[in-house]
């Protein structure tokens, strides 16, 4: 045989070599979809509030298993292995069931799952085009907000995509900082409501836009009795392993959009993704007696936003740019210090196949009072690879 590249020949040869047990790709009762994500990196320094540390490290190493439980329920379990100060910890990021057969476009999800507020939050981190979430996500949602709770969604029977959802969560990770451990938090901390609209623009483009509201019963800070508050809390904000939100408030509003473009709608060779989100977090100043003001020029809102564009210019290469800002307020005794973080980022990724990515990312961060950051350059070299079942991706 002179032709070694004949696919059929190759496959036949491979069959002969690996004639082990049959491996069907379809998830079934005896064979759920099992996949793993391997994520490793090296970076020269840290981004504030991010999970990745300086030097070599492992990112989101996850093991996921999913299948239809029966004709009514789908279930998924995602375990995440993380390193904290040299110790390995196993966490559960997803452990949920979802209904498959409810009438009228309704669906219920229960257990532990990623909240569907905003655009990025319900996407798995390994599908991101950048090594860390935008600063606004890190500040307000603990990078990605997952929790124990329940969700009800409805999809309208319209030609334009229109979905609505409400969620209720325990909200432990979204609690305001409690210096003295004296506060009585509510057990049902988070309620969300969101709506998403979407459609196509011609044969080449598709869009989605959403509005979300999050009510955090435990989001308001507790009044600090100490006049001269030491800046010790800055240490805690260095990097966040507990997935807790660093800056909370009773009300969070999120507006998001995403636009994707591919020539003729064919995503195999080239495609462009432009996305952006805006966050506003309000009502975090400690409740005080009506006649007292915490401070004269008291502010009661924090904001953040980002805009990102990622272009895959060949099946093997993609490049992205992202700019984001976050404005937060840090409580110091009876007053707040405004903080600002600006991040300009570029990333270049090489994809050998659909399942393997090696990424180089550069971030220039400029901070004003932000955890002591003034100017910093962060370079991350990262790989993200998936093995096992080919999971379907969200838009």
């Amino acid at each position, binding site marked *: 045989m*002179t*032709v*070694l*590249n*004949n*696919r059929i020949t190759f*496959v036949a040869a*491979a*069959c002969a070599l*690996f*004639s*082990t*047990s049959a*491996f*069907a*790709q*379809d998830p079934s009762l005896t064979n759920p979809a099992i996949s793993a994500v391997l994520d490793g990196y090296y970076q020269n320094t840290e981004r504030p509030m991010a999970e990745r540390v300086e030097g070599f490290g492992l990112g989101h190493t996850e093991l996921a298993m999913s299948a239809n439980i029966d*004709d009514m329920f*789908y279930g998924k379990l995602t375990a995440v292995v993380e390193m904290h100060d040299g110790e390995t910890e196993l966490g559960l990021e997803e452990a949920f069931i*979802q209904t*498959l*057969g*409810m*009438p009228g*476009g*309704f669906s219920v999800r229960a257990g532990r799952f990623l909240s569907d507020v905003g655009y990025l939050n319900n996407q798995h981190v390994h599908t991101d085009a950048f090594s860390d979430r935008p600063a606004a996500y890190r500040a307000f949602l603990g990078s990605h907000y997952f929790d124990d709770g329940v969700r009800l*969604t*409805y*999809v309208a*029977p319209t*030609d334009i*995509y*229109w*979905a609505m959802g409400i969620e209720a969560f325990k909200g432990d990770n979204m609690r305001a900082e409690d210096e003295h451990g004296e506060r009585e938090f509510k057990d049902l901390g988070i309620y969300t409501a969101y709506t*998403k609209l*979407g*459609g*196509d623009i*011609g*044969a080449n483009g*598709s*869009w989605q836009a959403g509005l979300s509201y999050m009510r955090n019963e435990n989001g308001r800070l507790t009044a600090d009795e100490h006049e001269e508050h030491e800046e010790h809390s800055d240490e805690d904000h260095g990097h966040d392993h507990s997935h807790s939100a660093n800056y909370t408030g009773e009300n969070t509003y999120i507006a998001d959009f995403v636009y*994707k473009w591919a020539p*003729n*709608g*064919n*995503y*195999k*060779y080239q495609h462009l993704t432009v996305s952006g989100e805006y966050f506003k977090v309000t009502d975090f100043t400690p409740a005080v007696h009506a006649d007292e003001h915490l401070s004269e020029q008291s502010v009661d809102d924090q904001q953040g936003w980002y805009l990102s564009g990622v272009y895959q210019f*060949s*099946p093997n290469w993609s490049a992205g740019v992202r700019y984001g800002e976050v404005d937060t307020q840090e409580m110091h005794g009876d007053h707040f210090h405004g903080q600002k973080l600006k991040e300009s980022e570029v990333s270049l990724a090489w994809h050998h*196949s*659909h*399942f393997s990515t090696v990424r180089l990312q550069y971030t220039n961060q400029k901070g004003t009072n932000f955890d002591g950051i003034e100017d910093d350059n962060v370079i991350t070299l990262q790989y993200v690879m998936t*093995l096992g079942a*080919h999971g*379907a*991706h*969200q*838009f």
Partner: protein
Amino acid sequence: MRINSNLIKISALALMASYSSVASAGLNIFACEPEYGALAKELAPDAKIYSATTAMQDPHQVQARPSLIAKMRQADLAVCAGADLEVGWLPMLQMKSSNAKVRSTDLGLFFAAEQVATLDKLESVDRSMGDVHAQGNPHLHFSPQRVLKVAQALTDKLIQLDPDSKAEYQKSLTDFSKRWSDAIPVWEAKAASLRGKKVIAYHSSFRYLFSWVGIEQVADLEPKPGLPPSSSHLASLLKRTEAGDIMAIVVASYQDERGANWLGERANLPVQVLPMSVGGNEQSQDLFSLYDSVLDLLLGVKSK
């Protein structure tokens, strides 16, 4: 989406025309690929049919985009190739559309590959082999005999979902099967001179077509299924062409022509783009004209 909106327009016209005569409740059909939209149109002319992809889009890599969720939400029946072709997006559409009707093949979900024996089924799949399908090659709409079987099974599914229109579906099937069976020997006679010809092609997209007309695909532009042509691989293909026995380089309408053009120029071989499905070129307006077009183009390149 040009092709889709045309389909909708056509089916809307068909609907309007049918309102005056029979009050048949047209099913809402979601076709994963245009070939199944075209087949559904033959078998259920009164149905409202939407094709999720066009012949210019690689069905392996489709975004589970909002418009598709909205269409699937309203569907009574989803008709797809199956054999894991849509594994990267169909499950997400099913999950997000919350439409109980299309969640299982017991109900309004239909996979063509489950109705026939596929080629190249694999006992064992390893990712080092590339993006291969354990359940065999899903591009089976270029096998005329399989299309007949799929049409029969799809008609059974239509009758299951809409038993009141049973007589009409059976009439459509009889009509389609007759025209299709009559066309097969005509196509085979036309394609007789292609038997034994050798081609280099992109992916195994035309596996069934080549198997039917007796063309041998001696090499693949992809180094491994799903991976784009690499320069080292193209160089090895160039060496292969030195034997002088290759008729042409064949790519499908949704595949990148650059690798093929590079090889074609150096090896002095014609590069032929074939419509992968209905709407892949001007001539391909339905399944019949798609077959006509593909054979015409191959005969054209043979006489070069």
